[in-house]
């Protein structure tokens, strides 16, 4: 991949304890992802795709190896520092959207901004701008249960981009959607990558979704397979 990596993994391994047994999920991975990339991570269930995404996003820690994002070693950070780093640099998009049911779309999108020093009016303004970007301005005051699955995922994406993060990490973003809604979400991600320059890493089972990425990486039994341009 390119020389100037936004994401740089060296010798990253991840083991889990399952009772007395140690499960080796990832084996000494080396990976570089350049800024502005749209990378799809594919592979069978249990291959370690989500684990790799979690390690890059700083919500899990490697058993060995180093993770460097935009020149910062995240694997050596304290929990508190890692939390602050995530708030500033990572936007997560989840398969099940993970919206808070008691909050309106606007308040859900505003959540990451509560971690900034922005005044309330500015937070609302930015939340509405993000909702506008995903085409949901008119649904700002609706609660998640009043939205379709595709609309919920758009709110999830608005929440992920509202704080203008360095990285957008999507874990099966279309996995719970029908084909039409899924396509709309993929259109949106593609536009964010191409027009806003967002670096996106997307875990998916779906070759149709992976085809929208610039690159596809295959993981099998914790090891990276062939890399392909989509």
């Amino acid at each position: 991949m390119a020389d100037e990596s936004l994401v740089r993994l060296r010798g990253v391994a991840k083991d889990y304890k399952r009772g007395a047994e140690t499960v080796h999920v990832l084996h000494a991975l080396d990976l570089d992802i350049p800024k502005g990339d749209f990378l799809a991570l594919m592979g069978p269930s249990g291959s370690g795709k989500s684990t790799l995404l979690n390690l890059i996003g700083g919500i899990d820690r490697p058993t060995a190896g180093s993770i460097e994002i935009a020149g910062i070693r995240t694997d050596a950070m304290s929990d508190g520092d890692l939390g602050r780093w995530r708030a500033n640099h990572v936007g997560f998009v989840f398969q099940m959207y993970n919206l808070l049911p008691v909050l309106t779309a606007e308040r859900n999108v505003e959540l990451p901004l509560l971690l900034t020093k922005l005044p309330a009016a500015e937070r609302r303004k930015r939340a509405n701008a993000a909702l506008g970007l995903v085409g949901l301005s008119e649904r700002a005051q609706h609660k998640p249960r009043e939205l379709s699955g595709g609309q919920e995922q758009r709110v999830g994406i608005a929440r992920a981009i509202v704080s203008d993060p360095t990285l957008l990490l999507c874990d099966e973003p279309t996995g719970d959607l029908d084909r039409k809604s899924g396509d709309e979400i993929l259109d949106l991600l593609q536009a964010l990558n191409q027009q806003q320059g967002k670096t996106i890493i997307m875990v998916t089972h779906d070759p149709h979704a992976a085809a929208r990425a610039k690159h596809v990486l295959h993981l099998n039994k914790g090891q990276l397979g062939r890399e392909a341009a989509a």
Partner: protein
Amino acid sequence: MSNNSLTQIGAITSMNVRNMSQRAASSIVALIGIAGVVTVLIGVLSIAEGFRAVLEISGSDQVAIVLRNGATDEMGSGLTQEQTRIIADSKQALRDEQGPVVSPELYVVVDVPLKSTGTAANVPLRGVGPQAMKLRSHFKMVEGTNFTPGKFEVVVGKGASMQFSGLTVGSQLRLGNANWTITGIFEDRGSVAESEIWTDATVLQGAYNRGTSYQSMRVKLTSASAMQAFKDELSTDPRLNIRVFSEKAYYAEQSKILVTLVSTIGSAIAILMGLGAIFAALNTMYSAVSSRTREIATLRALGFGSAPVITSVLAEALLIGLVGGVVGMVVSYVAFNGVRASTMNFATFSQLTFAFTVTPALLVQGLIYALILGFIGGLLPSLRAAKLPITTGLREL
């Protein structure tokens, strides 16, 4: 704490609270548990408070009680008629047109059936001197008339007439070997005297073969500050072997045993019930945390720290404690405050009528206990919520 942290805490806490309707059943169980504990705690302690209140309002700093040296109460005391005359001659005793305001008194315990159970209980029958009413500043007849000196007539305290059978004006009582007629009911602002039956001391001496002896002597002093001079005067008189208490100190001493007993038992019951309430609160908060595992993990993935998560769970538990505490306060106040009952005064082995007294201090005590129960109930679940790995939480449905 920065504004930013407060904003985070406020945002997560408000979400938790708004989510509570989804856990209404378990929240209500915990709330009722805490309310029940607070009700019992305040209820039991209001007995001690009522008992203390009766004995406190009964005592005056300006009235001295004289007992035989070595006696701690009237039951164990004895004074001769000669001694009572010497005491009445004290320069510190207040005088009016009828002479010194004193009352040599005799104290006998008699059996009268309780209205509530029909079983016999000890009631004090007090023989008093003609000036006795002036020694109780709030004494007044509320029904009938006072007893006639020299006759087998009695008047009954209002509290006693409410708690015991057959103590109504015009009724006859068989006490000792004589029949007594009840001529009136009196009150004395709820003091200990209201638990007693009164008669003429000289008639009581005859009825109970006490000769001319008395058991105590009440003396109204010229002022409260004359108490020490009164004590000094009497204790240096070689004809007397007596002990002087201020009436207030005497009743304070008497209330100690029961107040301590009731407070200890009440607190023990409240602690035991509190353990049960803590489990209810723990269960509620564990289920609250469990039902929100994915939400909490999502917030933490977005960068929210552990402190706001812990604080928000604790805040919800404290809110349950607060509401439970307030419900307990209201219920205990409505149910107990002013309810009259009688109990054994261990200092005199006779029944004392009192009203459950729910004081503001007791209400605050109940509320603090409720908040402690809520805090303990929320602490472990909040720590669990904060410590659960984010990746585990995100997998929860």
